[in-house]
């Protein structure tokens, strides 16, 4: 039994325990306990991982364990992690931990809610601990399906429409992904060799270039839908706007990262030649996404829409960084996954908390809330500053690494793309400050808001955890960029760079 299996087992045991809970008190405490355990486990995993690396083991993946699944097809449940997946596992446990506390007062159908939420999380954890493409796909689907229920049942506004749209678009993505994965599977070995879904084994064989070229768009677009690739991002604003708080947090915070992780781990890693051939096209889309998302956010009136468009912009920056094919930019892109994950979870948590009090998300119906709820307001401002890339917070480091890496391409095409992408730091400042200025500052607009209360202890815990990590990463970025993920970039870089 591998240590990594715990990351799926603990959530499943938590789910079973919730089945027997009698009231909401028990439910949420079981959930909180389970997810706290998960958070501790991730901390242990980080330490274990660093010890393994410190011991001088330089394998691409460590803690590898092969569990047979469908022997006839050679589909296995192969577990294994590297620095990148370890840090994304840590991200997931931070977000789900904060998410549980953010949904502390979920009264209706609480058992079912927490069960779906944790099943979703276990799918994400499963995705990150395996290195077998088929197993990854199964876990991915496991994460997407509870999403439909969570939005459809506990959502707000046009929730059925949004749930359907989100699920269908993601399923369309899945369809593309499975085609891509099967394509890789059938070309994973030379004629007559044993076909495999194992990431490591596939990477040892060079898939023919024409096959790569054919499969790359399927995988990039398939995962790209999840990673909000322009113009396939439209599920995101509606989906987030309708989803309950914790689901938005988990979805924008972690699930969207599954997309960019897939792009990196599968599309770029296994199909490096095609990545080079077609990179420019997707780079254009990513650049458009960065600017378009940010400009789109300026005129929004609903807090969740603002954050959704902002996510489109920030997630496009991840793809932008990945497509630069060099160490700084990819390092930055992966840090951006973590950074944006925590940041956007923070925003959705805060928006949920504010909505719970004011019963509106329309910024023009609010005003001066900083005076009424100084803690939540200040947290929102700090989150906003982090989001616009203020030094001292994680986003700044990620952006700098990406821009720096991008700038090392001296040709005009890349330079223009970089300048456009960098201009988003100004546009981001515009929409963040606009929102903050309208609904947090200024005089109090609605007299009913005068008597609202500030954060409760569970809200402080949820928001505090997220803020802590944004700041820690921002202050000591080298721990993530070098110690944790630094070594793990080499295999992918080697494959991507060898084509130059």
């Amino acid at each position: 039994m591998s240590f990594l299996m715990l990351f799926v087992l603990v959530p499943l045991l938590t789910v079973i325990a919730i089945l027997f809970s009698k009231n909401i008190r028990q439910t949420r405490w079981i959930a909180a306990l389970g997810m706290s355990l998960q958070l501790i486990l991730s901390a242990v995993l980080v330490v274990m991982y660093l010890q393994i690396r410190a011991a001088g083991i330089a394998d691409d993946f460590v803690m590898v364990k092969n569990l047979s699944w469908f022997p006839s097809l050679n589909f296995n449940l192969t577990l294994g992690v590297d620095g990148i997946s370890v840090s994304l596992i840590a991200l997931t446990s931070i977000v789900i931990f904060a998410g549980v506390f953010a949904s502390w007062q979920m009264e209706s159908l609480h058992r079912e809610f927490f069960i779906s939420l944790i099943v979703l999380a276990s799918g994400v954890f499963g995705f990150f601990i395996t290195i077998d493409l088929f197993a990854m796909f199964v876990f991915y689907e496991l994460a997407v399906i509870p999403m439909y229920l969570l939005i459809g049942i506990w959502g707000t506004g046009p929730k059925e429409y949004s749930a359907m749209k989100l699920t269908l678009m993601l399923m369309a993505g899945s369809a593309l992904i499975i085609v891509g994965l099967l394509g890789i599977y059938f070309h994973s070995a030379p004629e007559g060799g044993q076909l495999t879904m194992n990431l490591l084994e596939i990477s040892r064989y060079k898939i023919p270039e024409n096959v790569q070229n054919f499969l790359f768009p399927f995988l990039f677009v398939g995962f790209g839908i999840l990673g909000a690739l322009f113009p396939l991002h439209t599920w995101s604003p509606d989906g987030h706007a309708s989803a309950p708080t914790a689901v938005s947090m988990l979805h924008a915070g972690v699930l969207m990262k599954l997309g960019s992780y897939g792009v990196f781990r599968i599309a770029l890693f296994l199909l490096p030649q095609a990545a080079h051939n077609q990179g420019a096209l997707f780079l254009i889309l990513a650049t458009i996404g960065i600017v378009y998302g940010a400009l789109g956010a300026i005129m929004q009136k609903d807090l969740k829409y603002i954050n959704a468009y902002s996510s489109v912009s920030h997630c496009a920056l991840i793809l932008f960084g990945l497509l630069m094919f060099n160490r700084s930019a990819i390092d930055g892109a992966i840090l951006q996954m973590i950074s944006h994950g925590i940041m956007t979870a923070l925003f959705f948590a805060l928006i949920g908390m504010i909505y719970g009090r004011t019963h509106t998300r329309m910024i023009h119906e609010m005003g001066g809330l900083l005076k009424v709820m100084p803690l939540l307001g200040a947290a929102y401002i700090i989150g906003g500053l982090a989001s616009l890339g203020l030094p001292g917070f994680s986003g700044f480091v990620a952006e700098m690494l990406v821009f720096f890496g991008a700038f090392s391409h001296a040709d005009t095409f890349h330079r223009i793309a970089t300048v456009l992408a960098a201009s988003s730091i100004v546009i981001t400042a515009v929409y963040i400050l606009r929102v903050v200025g309208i609904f947090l500052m200024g005089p109090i607009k609605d007299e009913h808001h005068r008597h609202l209360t500030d954060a409760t202890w569970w809200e402080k815990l949820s928001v505090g955890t997220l803020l802590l990590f944004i700041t820690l990463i921002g202050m000591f970025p080298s721990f993530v960029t070098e110690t944790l993920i630094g070594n793990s970039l080499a295999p992918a870089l080697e494959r991507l760079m060898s084509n130059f």
Partner: protein
Amino acid sequence: MNAFEYTFLIPFIPLLGFLLIIFNFKRFPKKLTAALATSLIGISFVLSVYTAWQYFIIMGPLHGVYPKIIGNHFEWLKLGEHLSVHMGTLIDQASVMMLIVVSTVSLMVHIYSIGYMHDDRGFNRFFAFLQLFSFSMLSLVIATNVFQIYIFWELVGVSSFLLIGFYYEKPSAVAASKKAFIVTRFADLFFLLGILLISFHTDTFDFISLTNPENFERFNLHGTTFLGLSIPALALILIFVGGAGKSAMFPLHIWLPDAMEGPSPVSALIHAATMVVAGVYLVARMFANYAIMAPEALALVGYVGAFTSLFAAVIATTQIDFKRVLAFSTISQIGYMMAALGVSGYGEEAGLGYMASMFHLFTHAMFKALLFLGAGAVIHAVHTNSIREMGGLRKYMKTTHITFLIATLAIAGFPGLSGFFSKDEIITAAHQSYPLVFYTLLVVAGLTAFYMFRLYFLVFWNTETHYHHKPHDPGKAMLIPLIILAVLSIVSGYIPFGEFVSSDGKPLHTHLHFDIAIISTLVSFVGIAIAWFLYKKSSDLTSHLIARWGTFYRWAYNKFYIDEVYLFITHNIIFAYISRPIAWFDRHVVDGTMNVIGWITVTTSEKIKGMQSGQLQQYAFAFVSAILVISAFLIYYLINN
């Protein structure tokens, strides 16, 4: 090991203060906060003075050149193969000088604020932000590399944002803070691109290696960029745009007058003495690069500085808001410093402009901080910002009046006071090679004397207004900083500045240039005399003049409508024609496409769902017909082959 290892404490101590106060936000009583914050910045001040004493006096120049010493540093982030961002302290002439400026003014402002903010509910918040600002600004000035400057550049920007918007319930303060942040952020984008470009070509961020002329040969700087600019010229111009944003150079000056929405001590500290001169400091930091690698970029600095100086001075003559007059005066004076850098050469006597610029930065910090603190005292006493509602205050506020007069004389270039000496050096430097800049600066000297004395006479002389409460001098906490700064405004001119700060590290022996001094003194006397004539007593002459110069006056009064141009561009073009259409496009076209796909699927299935009716006859019919069709096809196929 080196003698300056302790210098990291200078910025670190206020950071500690910030954290202590912000985490005990509700618990700390006002007195504790005030004592804590003031003593912490006091320690930083003492350490800065000690550093200066150790660096300039004890150690002195080594083989005739002041060395650049890395106090301490560590790698913060690895950016690429060869490049890392370090955090540390760089001890050299310019940084030690700036340490003195920042810590002195910050200490004065801390003391002053104890009195000024006494009754404010946000007392603790205010001091926390002041500490945050001091930390960021001190870290900025002793940065070892351009990336560290950029990091703290952003942090001073956000401190400024927080302090301008300190009264966050006031819509005008919110708007001003937003404007300040966004305009400077816009400029920072260029700064960032400049850093990227220069580090791409030189493979270093470090000031010591970046600005060492001996290294210039090794840098790979060949090739031209667009507009035919050389790479260093483009990079340095981009960096200058960043500096111009922070230092409110035309056309990025629009945020500074609005920033006066912040409390007066903030205006004195951030928007007069320290943060706004960061742009000048940045150009000075990289002066060797400007002067040797890209003289054309340096010339641009000079012309932008001189133009801004004139432009702002003209506007300042028409404003009626006390603090806005001072704000435009600040813009004008920073333009002076920029112009001085622009006309300077590198090394020895040619570097006079550089030294003069730093000198003026130093003296200006003292008298301009004093002017703002004096303005704060007056506004505190009469509860209005409009100088039309003031007058005759000399009788009520004696100490404030005397200190304000000293500062006014200093900025006007009255012989014997600090501003006189530093301005003299600047004008001399311009006289050597840039006649256009020289005459511009001379005119500005006259305008400065005029608008400052206009302000002085309107506030302290002229007709006395009826005051609801009898105005009086503020309490000790506010008076002491005024007196100290007044003394500094007089004596700082007598520092042999060139001995300490010079472009190439070699002490520069300077002296007063009498020919120039006489001309500039005459010019400022003319300015003072006109102001005396027009404003000492109230007269009809001013309104006649205004009527005579109607159009020009209106344009100047409305700041030449630059704000309106920006508003038009952002609101009517970017928001209305880019952002809103994108939001619409996204909802209706991109998303619409998705919905249409969904609609087609639904409609198709709706149309074909009749086929699954459950009626056996229908199925049998379909089955038989299909068999017939397929058989027919097969038969046809077999016959033909």
